[in-house]
């Protein structure tokens, strides 16, 4: 057996040991616990059906609020992320500023959206304003990284050619980097919006507005049939947004020769 094959088998063995250790750690090797859990799931599932249509008038406006949180949050995220992404490009700033900005973006990403929501509930009080700003800041961290990676991926020859005309750094961004990366930027923006619709759905768990507030309430009141209605409405909206995203991406797709 050669060294490469041996190394591969040792790696698979180590992975298997780590998995079994982790399964035991989270309690999923406990047969009694598993049997009890499966029984509870069956019971819970029977309580979900049929969905309670009577809560639609309550849940639908909350879903609209969730979409508003996602839209405003994505907008805030984009407005904050774009300048930061440009500052994170060494070609536009310098080798001292760019790593600093990347560090700030990494820090923003470290804190989960829900925790940003809690922080903004403290700042703005309960309600969708906290959710939108929380989602906005969280999105800024992610969009900033996605944007500067896209800008970095622009063909170096295009950058070199436009730089060679003697333009400023801002002109280079405006006339070479941003148009060349526009398709990718749009795709990431749509993806972020889709993600934010899902993230906004649970912002209500911490009192930051949206449909999550009702979902948490239905769980606490054991009203699983009403919870299913809220989940189905969320699912429907997410499917529609995914479909719209595909259509928008298709319309803007660059058919390169």
């Amino acid at each position, binding site marked *: 057996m050669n060294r490469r094959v041996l190394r591969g088998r040792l790696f698979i063995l180590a992975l298997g040991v780590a998995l079994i250790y982790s399964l035991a750690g989270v309690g999923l090797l406990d047969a009694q616990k598993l049997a009890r859990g499966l029984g509870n799931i069956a019971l819970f599932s029977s309580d979900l059906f049929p969905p309670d249509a009577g809560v639609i008038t309550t849940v639908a406006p909350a879903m609209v609020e969730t979409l508003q949180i996602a839209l405003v949050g994505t907008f805030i995220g984009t407005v904050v992320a774009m300048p930061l992404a440009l500052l994170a490009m060494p070609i536009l700033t310098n080798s001292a500023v760019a790593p600093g900005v990347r560090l700030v973006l990494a820090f923003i990403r470290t804190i989960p959206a829900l925790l940003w929501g809690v922080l903004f509930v403290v700042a703005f009080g309960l309600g969708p304003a906290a959710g939108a700003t929380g989602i906005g800041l969280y999105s800024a961290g992610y969009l900033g990284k996605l944007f500067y990676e896209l800008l970095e991926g622009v*063909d170096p*020859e*295009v*950058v*070199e*050619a*436009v*730089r*060679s*005309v*003697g*333009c*400023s750094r*801002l*002109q280079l961004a*405006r*006339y*070479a980097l941003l*148009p*060349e990366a*526009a*398709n990718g930027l749009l795709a990431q923006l749509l993806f972020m919006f889709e993600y934010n619709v899902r993230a906004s759905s649970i912002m209500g768990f911490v009192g930051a507005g949206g449909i999550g507030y009702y979902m948490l309430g239905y769980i606490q009141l054991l009203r699983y049939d009403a919870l299913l209605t809220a989940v189905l409405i969320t699912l429907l909206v997410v499917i529609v947004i995914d479909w719209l995203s595909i259509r928008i991406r298709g319309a803007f797709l*660059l*058919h*390169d*020769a």
Partner: protein
Amino acid sequence: MTSERPLKDATGFTGRSSVNALQASPYAVEATDLSFSYGRGQHVLRSMDFAAPQGQITMVIGASGSGKTTLLKLVKGLLPLQEGRMTVLRKTYDSPGENRHITSEIAYIPQHLGLVRSLTVLQNALTGALGRLGLPYSLFGGFPHALIQEAKDRLTRIGLGEKIEEKVYNLSGGERQRVAIIRARMQNPRLILADEFVSQLDTVTTTTIMDALREQTRNDGVTYIQTTHELDLVLRFADRVSVISSGKVVLEAEGGAVDRQTLSEAIRS
């Protein structure tokens, strides 16, 4: 007639590159003892001497990896001067990194043209004029009407009048090359550097583009330096040719005074 490079004097530089002679220099670009390496010990240029006369088409021919692109990038200032001395448009650089100053006086067309694919033909042409514009105006106010008209006129003269609103990714190879040359001309440059330009184009398109360039060098005194690996291009259009092999200029000659066999032998040397 084939000409030899002047011998270096005791200070290591040729008589042509002396500072006192700059005002009268007939050369737009003159380099002596130019060496460049991308990594430790891997020299792409080795004590190269090179000169391009003002207002002429100079073609630099050589095999792949012979140092043609590196030479152009050093002249443009995209790569830092490491060793040697360069005089470009009467500015002399002899310290490491001193040449890294991008100016609109020198246009550079990279091998794959570097056009912004999602912009239109007109917008790409106009990017050539960015160095001439004030920052706030070009960022938020678009381009002045006179400049737009200038770009349209130039594009029309080169046969792209019908395609000014077309996105670049919809154009053919020859059309893209023409956009690149108009972008370069919108800089109002005194020197144009083109890397493997008009390669792999049909004869008619090549002739159209090269004739337009020749007209510009003759009428406006613009100097044009092009790298190529195509002998036919050199024999048909070069006023002057420099053959590069292993990072050195091994032959310099007037365009009409050199034959195919001499060039081929020099490239292989």
